[in-house]
């Protein structure tokens, strides 16, 4: 499967096996990824153009089905190369039987069998590109944040993470990236299903409530 299969993929013409194979290609192919991102609004616009409302009964049937249909387990995905890097480094540490592992609670959390990775995206308020992911453990909700290529902060400022639930944002910890723009920390707040995680820029020490625009957000 290669670039040539992009239109077949978008048009739903690939068999299940070929879909899986193409998605594997997609994961490592920047050119297909950017074309996919680029074409998404067109696909949506054409679909809107041919849109026809189904009967209202269909909604009831679908929602009833969904209420009794289990979801597949989330992939424990070290999805990006750099997180793969973390996992690989971790494997080496494990193989070496190093005690270092115990000193890095973030690696321990990422390696947990019930760890779930949540991708975070930069909003328009963040000027550069950076990688950020939150990881939480399903058993107890323990959360970590991992960031790379993050912009440095000025003196007297700090990044602050927020858990945004139905009652608004609750501080989940402050952090400053190192010289490489890397940040790894265990968050202060436990994960709650249905919440979002956001990151803002705050005065050193953090704020009780966010004072800047949201720079990173889950599902943004």
């Amino acid at each position, binding site marked *: 499967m290669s670039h*040539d299969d992009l*239109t*077949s*993929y*978008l*048009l*739903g*013409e*690939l068999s299940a096996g070929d879909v899986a194979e193409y*998605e594997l290609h*997609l*994961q490592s192919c920047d050119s297909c990824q950017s*074309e*996919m*991102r*680029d*074409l*998404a*609004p*067109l*696909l*949506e*616009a*054409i*679909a809107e*153009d*041919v*849109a*026809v*409302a*189904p009967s209202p009964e*269909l*909604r009831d*049937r*679908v*929602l009833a*089905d*969904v209420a009794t*249909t*289990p*979801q*597949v*387990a*989330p*992939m424990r995905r070290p*999805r990006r190369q750099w997180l793969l890097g973390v996992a690989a480094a971790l494997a080496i540490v494990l193989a070496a039987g190093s005690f270092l592992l115990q000193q890095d609670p973030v690696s321990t959390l990422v390696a947990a069998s019930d760890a779930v990775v949540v*991708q975070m995206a930069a909003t328009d308020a963040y000027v550069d590109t950076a990688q950020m992911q939150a990881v939480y453990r399903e058993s107890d909700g323990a959360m970590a944040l991992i960031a790379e290529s993050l912009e440095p902060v000025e003196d007297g400022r700090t990044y602050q993470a*927020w858990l945004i639930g139905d009652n*608004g*944002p609750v501080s989940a910890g402050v952090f400053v990236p190192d010289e490489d723009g890397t940040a790894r920390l265990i968050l202060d707040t436990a994960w709650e299903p*249905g919440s*979002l995680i*956001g990151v803002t820029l705050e005065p050193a020490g953090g704020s009780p409530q*966010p*004072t800047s*625009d*949201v720079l990173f*957000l889950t*599902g*943004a």
Partner: protein
Amino acid sequence: MTYAVPYRRPIRVWPFSRLMAVSRVVLAKMSDFVTSQPDALMAKIALGDQRAFAAFYDAMSAAVFGTVLRVLRDRQQSEEVTQEAFVAMWSAAPTWDPERGSAATFILTIARRRAIDRVRSEEARKRREETATTMDVAPDVAHERLESEETSSEMRQRLLLLPEDQRVVIDLAFYEGHTQQEISDKLGVPLGTVKSRMSVGMSKLRRAMEVSA
């Protein structure tokens, strides 16, 4: 004689306190705001949120049903496939990866794939029946007339600006619901040519959307 005075837009300076107040409101509303976008909804659906799923269904069902209807041309079957597709999406939501495409692309490709599978198995069934009975059944399913309403849509207008060969493949695929293989057979051009016309045409249409946006 008058001279045009160059007009400079005044830069609006907001007091910091006002900015803070606004961004607080924005953030407080943030969870409501982002839930209106399919991608943000999908992030919640992936965590088992049925309310988010209902909102996603409401936002996407007409687009999905319409897409499927183009392929199957039968309301009853199209509703069945739409239902299958949404339930499959729910089930697979935890594996959805925003880097592989938008949530809307995700459901639309699932739905189209299932519609095409349905056509293929339907055709296979018919072939079996025909050879079994040798009865000359006109295989004409009541084709709904779908083309007339959209002649004036913005997208149709943009489509008209494409070179003929690209316009035709896009029209046949998206508006007539054909696969690229079918288009290749219909036009008598190689599949690879259909794919490249499709790809070039789609990216031109995409650029045209940007211009008119």
